[in-house]
């Protein structure tokens, strides 16, 4: 019996017992949780940006759903609209765009997110890169004008905050430092979902408590970013942009809680998730401090998505008593 067992290599990869399956853990329920977690952020976006937020959210939501339906039809598979995953992609995408971005940016980003970010790889669960960030990266490079600083800051906007520079840009260009208050509550310009640290923390904590998002990823990201920002402050003590500004400003919290935690594109094991979070935090700070871009969350998440298979490979849990 024993000899027989050693002859075969297992074909099905299973983790050690106990093997529990739960009817509560469907994609649909998870995605509904994510939508619930996003609701404080969406609410803040609506409160701060009014019609700009409504418009962008509608465009991206409808764009992603339509793209999903179209591409799944092309692949002759039943449409997966009712698992809400396309809706989540659409909302996260909208929340990562500037409110004043023209309509075609939302449409193109949605089609690229679903088409090139997800369906090309084989649909939900198979994609390597976070679909929303693929879509955003595409429009960011394609329409640098509308997605860079001038895209955020529009003098003739009907909503007051959009007429001002984003806190990160203002600091990079003129050295002006936003107050921690405004960054915490979110009454500043920026991408729709990133302005309010409070809303991101509320929604994010809900997801972590519900175990829909793994706490290791945001924890790793925030701790690493805080540590690196602290070091940067020690090196340049004259800078008024403190570690707290780094944490509350920009899209660090939004990215850490809602983008990096996508279960498909992040590692499987708790240790791997922590490494992933540390990597995101590290690249965010490197890009913020040393690159020409004011913000680095999108590229950081995409970079770490790319090494996720490697992290998974490194952190395969060893069964109890197995010889290394």
């Amino acid at each position, binding site marked *: 019996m024993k000899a027989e067992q050693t002859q075969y290599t297992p074909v099905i990869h299973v983790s050690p017992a106990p093997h529990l399956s739960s009817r509560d853990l469907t994609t649909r329920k998870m995605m509904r949780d994510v939508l619930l977690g996003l609701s404080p952020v969406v609410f803040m976006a609506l409160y701060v940006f009014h019609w700009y937020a409504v418009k962008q959210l509608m465009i991206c939501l409808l764009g992603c759903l339509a793209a999903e339906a179209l591409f799944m039809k092309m692949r002759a598979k039943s449409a997966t609209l009712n698992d809400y995953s396309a809706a989540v992609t659409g909302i996260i995408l909208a929340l990562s765009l500037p409110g004043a971005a*023209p309509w075609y940016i939302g449409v*193109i980003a949605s089609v690229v997110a679903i088409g*090139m970010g997800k369906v*090309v790889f084989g649909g939900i669960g198979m994609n390597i890169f976070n679909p929303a960030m693929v879509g955003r990266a*595409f429009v960011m*490079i*394609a*329409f*640098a004008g*509308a997605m860079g600083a001038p895209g955020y800051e529009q003098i003739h906007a009907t909503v007051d905050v959009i007429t001002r520079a984003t806190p990160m840009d203002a600091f990079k260009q003129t050295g002006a430092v936003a107050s921690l208050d405004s960054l915490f509550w979110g009454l500043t310009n920026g991408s729709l979902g990133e302005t309010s640290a409070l809303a991101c923390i509320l929604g994010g904590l809900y997801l972590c408590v519900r175990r829909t998002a793994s706490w290791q990823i945001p924890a790793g990201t925030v701790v690493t970013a805080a540590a690196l920002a602290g070091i940067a402050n020690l090196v340049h003590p004259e800078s008024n942009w403190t570690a707290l500004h780094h944490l509350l400003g920009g899209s660090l919290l939004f990215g850490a809680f809602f983008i990096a935690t996508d279960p498909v594109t992040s590692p499987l094991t708790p240790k791997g998730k922590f490494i992933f979070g540390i990597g995101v935090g590290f690249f965010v700070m490197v890009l913020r401090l040393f690159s020409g871009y004011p913000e680095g969350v999108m590229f950081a998440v995409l970079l770490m998505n790319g090494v996720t298979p490697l992290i998974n490979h490194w952190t395969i849990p060893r069964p109890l008593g197995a010889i290394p």
Partner: protein
Amino acid sequence: MAVAPTPAERFIQGILPENPVYRQLLGLCPTLAVTNGLQAALTMAGAVAFVLFCANIVTSTIRHLLKPHLRIVIFTLIIATFVTITDRFLAAYMYGMSKLLGPYIPLIIVNCIIICRCEVCASRQSVFAAGADALGQATGFALALVSIAAVRELLGSGMLFSVQVLPESWPNWVIMILPPGAFMTLGLLVGAVNWFEQRRSEQAESERG
């Protein structure tokens, strides 16, 4: 084994069923590098067509004299000669284009489409078959370059052959002019051609069965 294809069949084969770029995935370096505009793509396609045709004809003519262990040296010699002629010709009569394409013209020497055709076809077949094969493959290569360049130039700058065709209000997709746009366009078009070919072969299968 089926009967050897006629020259006409060889020509047809090269255009889509055995398209060098879309089906064989050969010669991708120039395909990615010079397709941000239609003019550059067409010049490159013309240069490759000339070199491919001449190399195939010469190789086929001397095919009985080839020794197996020296054949690659001879292919390279033949290809390098015609590439140099093309390079000088462009520098003399299309100077601007020659500067734009820069090192990509001399790099045709290492374009594997040409050495591949010398090896698999011209060194074994009659001059006529080799010529038809070269023309088919060259047409296929031109088709691939032109289709990729058309997508990239149109989306990336709203122009075709440097003439504005889309309205001025068209927002240029800068990414399409940049290298990532080349990779994405190539990937999507390879997918489209595969899909098309698969459907066609399925249809042919069902007609036969």
